[in-house]
């Protein structure tokens, strides 16, 4: 796009470029193994579902406080993405999933033997502050003037949405079916949607930007969060200690504070 003529005074550019490329390529090729090898002695790697970001960051800090010299490295992503990373051999010590389905995938990939449910979550209606469309019940979501945003059936939160709708004999017509619960929340936060179906914990985290409307039908569809120390963990003892922290009184207190229900 720049129409500058090549300047004759720069003979080194030619050699620099390939060298740069080689460095980038080398870094890309050795990146994965390099970091683990260097960090292995003192680092505990925890793969956790995106919805656990707040709670597990806190728990990671507590764990570090209780284990001087140990660093907890947290990797947050969608449970399905984490499960496929584990399937592809990503090095990790602990896996905490937002649903049992993706934990089963890790079991099928022989990365997990036993898992334990440490929390559960239910759906809640999120509305913008002031509730402009006056949504009070689940049935209100079917009113034609309510701009409803839900998770697509393919997403975990969408499967829960479908179950809730089926149990209540309702059928939702959404203006958008998002691929993640955070996208649903975003559309409610910026006021584009009048209502969205998200998890209780999402509403709690977005306090001030959205208001939660509880509906009784939610208790029929409970999403369970399992956690496991990986079979090939580099730090098996620490991994089990972290799992115990999450399952124990301290972990449960932190999770309850964020709106998670007991397993």
């Amino acid at each position: 796009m720049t129409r500058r003529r090549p300047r004759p005074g720069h003979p080194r550019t030619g050699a620099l470029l390939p060298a740069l490329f080689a460095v980038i390529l080398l870094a890309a090729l050795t990146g994965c193994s390099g970091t683990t090898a260097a960090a292995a002695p003192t680092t505990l790697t925890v793969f956790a579902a995106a919805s656990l970001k707040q709670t597990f960051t806190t728990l990671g800090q507590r764990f570090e406080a209780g284990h001087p010299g140990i660093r907890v490295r947290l990797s947050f992503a969608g449970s399905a993405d984490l499960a496929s990373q584990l399937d592809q051999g990503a090095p990790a010590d602990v896996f905490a999933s937002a649903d049992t389905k993706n934990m089963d995938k890790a079991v099928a990939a022989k990365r997990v033997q036993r898992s334990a449910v440490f929390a559960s979550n239910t759906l809640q209606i999120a509305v913008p502050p002031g509730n402009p469309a006056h949504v009070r019940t689940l049935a209100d979501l079917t009113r034609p003037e309510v701009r409803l945003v839900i998770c697509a059936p393919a997403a975990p939160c969408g499967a829960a949405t479908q179950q809730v709708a089926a149990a209540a004999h309702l059928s939702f017509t959404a203006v958008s079916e998002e691929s993640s619960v955070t996208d649903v929340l975003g559309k409610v936060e910026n006021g584009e949607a009048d209502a969205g179906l998200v998890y209780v914990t999402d509403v709690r985290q977005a306090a001030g930007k959205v208001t939660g409307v509880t509906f009784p039908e939610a208790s029929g569809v409970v999403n369970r969060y399992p956690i496991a120390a990986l079979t090939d963990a580099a730090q098996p003892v620490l991994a089990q200690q972290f799992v115990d922290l999450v399952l124990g009184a301290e972990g449960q207190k932190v999770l309850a504070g964020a709106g998670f229900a007991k397993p």
Partner: protein
Amino acid sequence: MLVPAALGCLFLLLPLLAMGSRVPWPRFPALVTSDSSRAALLLSLQTSLASTVVCLLVGVPVALVLARTSFAGQRLLRVLVLVPLVLPPVVGGLALLYTFGRRGLLGHTLELLGVQIAFSTVAVVMAQSFVALPFLITSLEGTLRSVGGRLEVVAATLGARPTTTLLRVTLPVVMPGLLSGTVLAFARSLGEFGATLTFAGSLQGVTRTLPLEIYLQRETDPDEAVAMSFVLILIAVVVIGIAQRTRTRP
């Protein structure tokens, strides 16, 4: 010189080959003809064509103004017009939302007029046009600046009116630049993801284009995601191929 060139090509081609190796070929026809795949493909082609037309209608005048006139603040304007080129598409989507969304700059006015843009196919076309327009402008402006200026002067001295000069002299000589700009804009529209997801939402047949469908299916049905990705690559190859052939033709 050859080694880095080979490395560069390998770096670009290997992922495509890897993708091809993951396509579940026996199920490929069924996967790409499923309801959701067909709806996404059709929507992607329709919206990309629409946004390419929008880019042409708006982009050609902008490029002409930038290349053939000079006025105060022109350099600043050129920089600003190209901003979407480097902006992460998600940011572009947010910017559109803050402009045309319900609580956006024009939201209230639009609501009074009874126009709702978010969650509609129009929003998809707008998101695509926003990210694709700079490609057309920059490509055409570059060509305009390098060719045609003198020919236009000659045409004018021979008594051609400005419109005649534009249609008979300027446009024919910048055709290669216009064509590659158009192809780039179409390709960019076809691949648009972030701005669409942020601004338009995701609903089958309305706003869920091919990239959004791939993103959605990668969790539950990776096979379908891979198959659709391969279709997207095929379209890209065909489009670029056509552009190159028309360009090299005498």
